[in-house]
Each structure stands twice: as C-alpha cells, then as structure tokens.
C-alpha cells in the first residue's frame, strides 16, 4: 500500500508538472504576458533591495503603503475564496463541490500573493530567517504579526493538503476517504475566518492609530472578504467554463451571487457606521476620516481614491439588486468587477494609508505609491495569476477524469453527475447568507 503510493505519487506530480507546460496558443500567450510582468516586478524589487526602500513612496510618516495594502486585500481574497466551502459541505450542495476546489486553488494563489507582498515590504529580506520559529526569535504570542505568519502558512498548508489529496484520489480513480479531507475542510472554514481576523487585529490593536483602533475592523474585514472571494470566483468560473471543456453549471454562480448580494450591503452598512461614529464624535477619530473623504489643510491625495471606492461599491450593490443581475451575465460581471476593485481601494488607499495620515504627532504628510511600488505590485499579481492559471489548468483534466492512473478515462466524470439538477435561484440565497449575516 505504502510502497504503491511511493510510486504513484511522484508519477501524479510529474504528470501535473508536464501538464503545466502544455496548452493552446492562448495559454502560452497568457503565460508569456504574465511572465513578462512578473519579471518587470522582480527587477524593480531587486533594485529596491539594493538601493533601499527609499525607492518607494513611503516615509517615516506613512511607513506602510501599497505593499501592505495589497497584502491585506490578498488575505481577504484567500479567506473569501474558501467561503464557497460553506454551501458545498455545510448544506451539502453537490454542485458546489467541483468548484470548491477551484476556490481552494485561488486561496493558495492568494496566500502566495500575501507572502510575496510581505517579503517585498521587508527592509531586510535577507534576514527573513529571523522569522522562522526555532531558527530565529519568534515573538509569539505577543506580536500579532507572528500570529499572522502562523495562520497564513497554516492556511496555505491546509489548502494544499485538501486540493492535493482530492486531486490525487481522483487521479487514482478512488473515492476520497472522508476522514482525510472532511475534517480539514471544516477546519479551513474556521481558519479562513481566523486569517482575516488576525490580519485585522494587526491594525486594530494599535492604540496610537485611532483610525484603525476600532472593534469593527475585524467584522468589516470578514464582510469584505465575503465580497472579494465570491466576486472573483464568479468571474473565474466563467473564464474556466469558456476556455476549458470542464462543466460548471449556473447553480454555483447563482449561489455566489446571492452571497454577494448580502455582503455588499453589509460592508456598506459597516462603513457607514464607522463614518457616523467618526464624524459625529469628531476629535482624533475624525481627523483621518476627514482627510480621507474631504482632504484637510489643502491636501487631498486620498479623496479621489475613496470616492471611487464608495462609488464602485454602491454601484455594484445597486447592480446586484437589479433583477437583471439574475438574468444577464454582463450585469453580474460588471457588478463583480466593481465590487472587487471597490474593496481593493477601500482596504488599501482607504484604510492602510489613512491610518498614517495624520501621523501620531498630527503631521499631515501625504503618500503616493512610486513607480517601483507599482511595478513590484503588478509583478506579484502576475505571479499570483500564474500560480492560479497553472494550478487550475493541471487540475481540470484530473477533475474531469481525463488524466488518471489508467491514462484515459471517460471524459464525463462523477464530479458533476447531474448538471441539470440546478438550484432554484432564490432559495439558496437565504441559506448561504445565514452564516454571513452573523
């Protein structure tokens, strides 16, 4: 038994590896573009390491910028991607099962993105090993950042295990043993919540930064994770459907859109509550919000950003509540894209940066990302998309049963036994929304 795995597992990996280099011209073109962007980013990062972080737009006043903003957003994306597990397993929605794996692969790519952004933000990446438990000096449990290191890497391993195991079983043509993945799936739901909660605590735990020092930060992070994850997956599933022969029904799209309908409103509601508290009370809590939304002392750097974010989020909420969003893919897709970008701005230029403006001594120093930062950022996103593309690409033939130990299996797979068993559009909305609303 053991020895047979020792033989087939490497074969499984080798097959996947080979598959990663096979593809249509579209695949090659897409990967070439991504590689080029990633290389530009790598080069910009190399310069940053050599010449110093001064190449970024950050300063002692605004000491975190685009990198940490993207890191925060990426954690949300990773957490949100796995939320699809909830309808699939908790409510035994079978049609979701096959797309859950895609969500988990998105989580893997997103966590890689987060880790890359943390690395890009370090002034001394050569001392990375100081962070390794055992080798360095890990300031656990006091430092929230050490918690983040633990939960993010744990989450990465968890998702690697689940996807790896399920794919391998499919490859062998065997039924996966529940005890080898179900406990991990449930664990990953809690874990998904934990990664974004801990990330929120990074900021909300700082008493000297009134803009972040709010108990609502963690719930807001979770709500926005439930936006970015489903929004991205809705778009991703359609891409997969379009460019592969892997069958994905409309059911999962509808389920995810229902989740989205609730979370966009929830997110706006919480943003509104924060703003009410800030502006009605005034004082230290309001100065950053005032600068963010209206500018102060003649400085308006973040005003266009935040109003675009608000506009995007509101527009997406409106679109999602139009009846057309249920019938027209275009409306749905535009709403998803708006929500995705809206949250991206809100979490970054709308949350990380204003935490530093005004500074703790109330100096108003503005921040704008430098070209180096934009390059590195684009490069890391390209890297993340490469990971995502390749992993989905190699997983699909296994999932649909075309790649297996026996070589060629029938294309129709047990992953989607009955595509016609679509879920009625309205009913699952309440079901999947329930865990969100709490």
């Amino acid at each position, binding site marked *: 038994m053991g020895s047979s795995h020792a033989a087939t597992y490497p074969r499984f990996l080798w097959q996947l590896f080979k598959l990663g*280099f096979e593809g249509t011209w579209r695949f*090659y073109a897409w990967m070439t573009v991504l*590689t080029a962007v990633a*290389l*530009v980013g*790598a*080069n910009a990062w*190399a*310069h940053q*390491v*050599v*010449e*110093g*972080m*001064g190449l*970024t737009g*950050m*300063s*002692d*006043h605004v*000491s*975190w910028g685009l990198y940490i903003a993207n890191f925060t957003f990426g954690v949300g994306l990773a957490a949100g991607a796995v939320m699809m597990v909830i309808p699939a397993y908790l409510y035994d929605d079978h049609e979701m099962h096959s797309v859950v794996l895609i969500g988990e692969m998105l989580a893997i790519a997103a966590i890689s993105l987060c880790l890359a952004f*943390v690395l890009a*933000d*370090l*002034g*001394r*990446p*050569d*001392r*990375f090993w*100081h*962070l390794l438990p055992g080798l*360095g*000096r*890990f*300031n656990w449990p*006091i*430092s*929230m*950042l*050490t918690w983040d*290191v633990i939960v993010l890497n744990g989450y990465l391993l968890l998702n690697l295990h689940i996807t790896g195991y399920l794919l391998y079983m499919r490859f062998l043509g065997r039924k996966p043993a529940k005890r080898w993945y179900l406990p991990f799936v449930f664990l990953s739901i809690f874990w998904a919540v934990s990664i974004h909660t801990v990330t929120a605590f*990074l900021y909300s*735990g*700082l*008493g*000297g*930064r009134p803009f972040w020092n709010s108990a609502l930060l963690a719930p807001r992070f979770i709500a926005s994770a439930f936006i970015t994850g489903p929004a991205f997956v809705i778009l991703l599933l359609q891409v997969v459907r379009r460019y592969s022969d892997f069958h994905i029904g409309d059911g999962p799209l509808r389920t995810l859109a229902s989740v989205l309908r609730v979370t966009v409103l929830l997110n706006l509601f919480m943003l509104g509550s924060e703003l009410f508290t800030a502006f009605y009370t005034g004082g*230290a809590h309001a*100065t950053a919000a005032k600068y963010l939304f209206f500018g102060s002392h003649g400085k308006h750097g973040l005003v266009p950003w935040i109003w675009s974010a608000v506009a995007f989020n509101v527009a997406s909420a409106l679109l999602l509540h139009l009846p057309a969003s249920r019938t027209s893919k275009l409306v749905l897709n535009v709403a998803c894209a708006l929500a995705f970008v809206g949250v991206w701005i809100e979490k970054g230029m709308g949350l990380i940066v204003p*935490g*530093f403006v*005004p*500074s*703790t*001594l*109330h*100096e108003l120093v503005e921040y704008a990302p430098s070209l180096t930062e934009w390059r590195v950022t684009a490069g890391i996103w390209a890297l993340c998309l490469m990971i995502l593309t390749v992993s989905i690409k190699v997983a699909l033939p296994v999932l649909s049963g075309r790649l297996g130990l026996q070589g060629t299996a029938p294309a129709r797979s047990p992953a989607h036994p009955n595509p016609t068993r679509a879920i009625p559009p309205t009913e699952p909305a309440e079901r999947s929304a329930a865990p969100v609303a709490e």
Partner: protein
Amino acid sequence: MTKVNRRVALKVVGTTLGAGAFAQAMAPLREWARDLSLDEFLQRHYRELDKEEMERVLRRLEEETAAEYGRDVHIRDVRPMEDVQFGYALNLSVCIGCRRCAEACHEENNHDRATNNSYIRVLEMDQGSFDLEQGNATYDHEVPAPGKYYLPVQCQQCDNPPCVDVCPVQATWKESDGIVVVDYNWCIGCRYCEAACPYHARRFNWHKPELAPEDINPDQAYLSNRIRPAGVVEKCTFCLHRTREGRLPACLEACPTGARVFGNLLDPDSEIRWVLENKRVFVLKEELGTRPRFFYFFDE
C-alpha cells in the same frame, strides 16, 4: 513526429529564455549579495552573543565602517548599570524651540546627513492649547515666536512600550535601565514598530546613511549610535553610550536654556527626582497606557 519535436524544442527555448530573463531581472542582487558577508548574514541576536562573539562582531563592524565610510571608529557594547532607572523631564516654560537638541542628536548619533534626520521633533504649539493637531513641526522662523510655546518630542522610553510588543522577531526590547533599544543587525525592517509607536519616535533607514568621514562621531556603541545599516529601524536610546557611563545625553548638553533634566529615578537625591516630586509633571498621551519615562512640566 516533427511536430512533437518542434513543440519540445519550443519549450526548451522558452524555458531557457525565461530563466535567462529572470537572471537578468535579478542581476542587481548579485552585487548586493557580494557585499553581504556570511558572518553578517548568520549573526545571532544580541542577547545570544557571548563575550567572545560580541568582540568579534564589534571588530567586524569597525572594519566595515572603515571600509565603507573611511573613518576609524570605536564601537563598544555598553551594558546597563545596576540599580539605575533612567528618566527625562523637560521644562516647557523655558524651552524656546531653537532645535539645538535636535541638531546635537543629529551629530551625536551619526544620523544620515542627506535627510537631516534626528530623533527629536520640536512642535510649535499655540499658547493656551495642548492640541497636537494645531502643532507645527516644520516652522521656519525666528524663535520664540509670540503666542507660541515649544514641545520637543522624542522616544518616551515607554515602560509599557507598544513598539516592543509588536516586533515579530524581538529585534527591539526594553533594557533593565528602562531604555528601549533595537538590534540593528537583527531587525528585519517590517516597520510594524513604527506603526505602533504613538509618538513618532522611530525612524527607518530608507537608504544607506550618508556621512562624510569628518562628520562621523567615532565614539559608538552597538545598541546606540553606530552607523545603522540600510533597511532597519532606529530610535533614541537616551544616548546610552554616554549615559550608561555617567555622562549626560547630547541633547541635554546642547540645550541653551537648561530646559532638560536627566537622571536616575532610583536616586532620591537626583534632580529628576526633585522635579517629579516638586513640579506638576505630565506625560504625553497618558490615556494610551504606555507609561512614558519622559515627563513634561511648566513652571508655576
């Protein structure tokens, strides 16, 4: 058959090109890696170094300074004294906002000349208000200006320092005499402490510091004023290379009005104790629970 071969050839070419492009993109790192010595890379945390290892590290740092900055310096490892808790107080009634303290800090601590860095920021405040929001740290006119008073702010050496709590690698900690220090050779440059400090006391080395040989203060300590590497955080250390040997901080000596009082909080005869017992002192942002060891007071 030929089609398959062409595919394989294309893949090989593509992979080679990709690898070559990657090497090219990362080329700047090669020089940087050459400058990074293995000893430096593998150096342990300050508190894990025994006497001998510390000696070797200090000599290596001196050599590096000589090679990179063209100046022979002496770097010591100055440890805390027994039964000493340092405290600092500042008389806001006499401070005139001349920023001599900030300049003295700049020179004493081998700060980057290009950015005119200093651990001290002086805020110009409106008479009759303690609202930091109305303060101005970039004033540029004759002092003292009418209707204004001046509030110099530097590291408050918090007894409950948030900057220490957040550091993921324990690169910053509170010493037994109350001074919060950074191991510049252990800090990974994440700047979490900079976000956590409520007093804007920390600085990051965005570039390698620029110093002419003649500007360098050669009297240096590992935990305080030695020239910092790029990419790490630094902060005020109450001039521990001076104060732990019985001297006064450079900022105090430079102050023309005698606004600054420094000393051992455990010594009942010290001036700092007299101030704490006889003046109505206060600390900045007391509500945050950081318990600063830096006190302010006005003359009655």
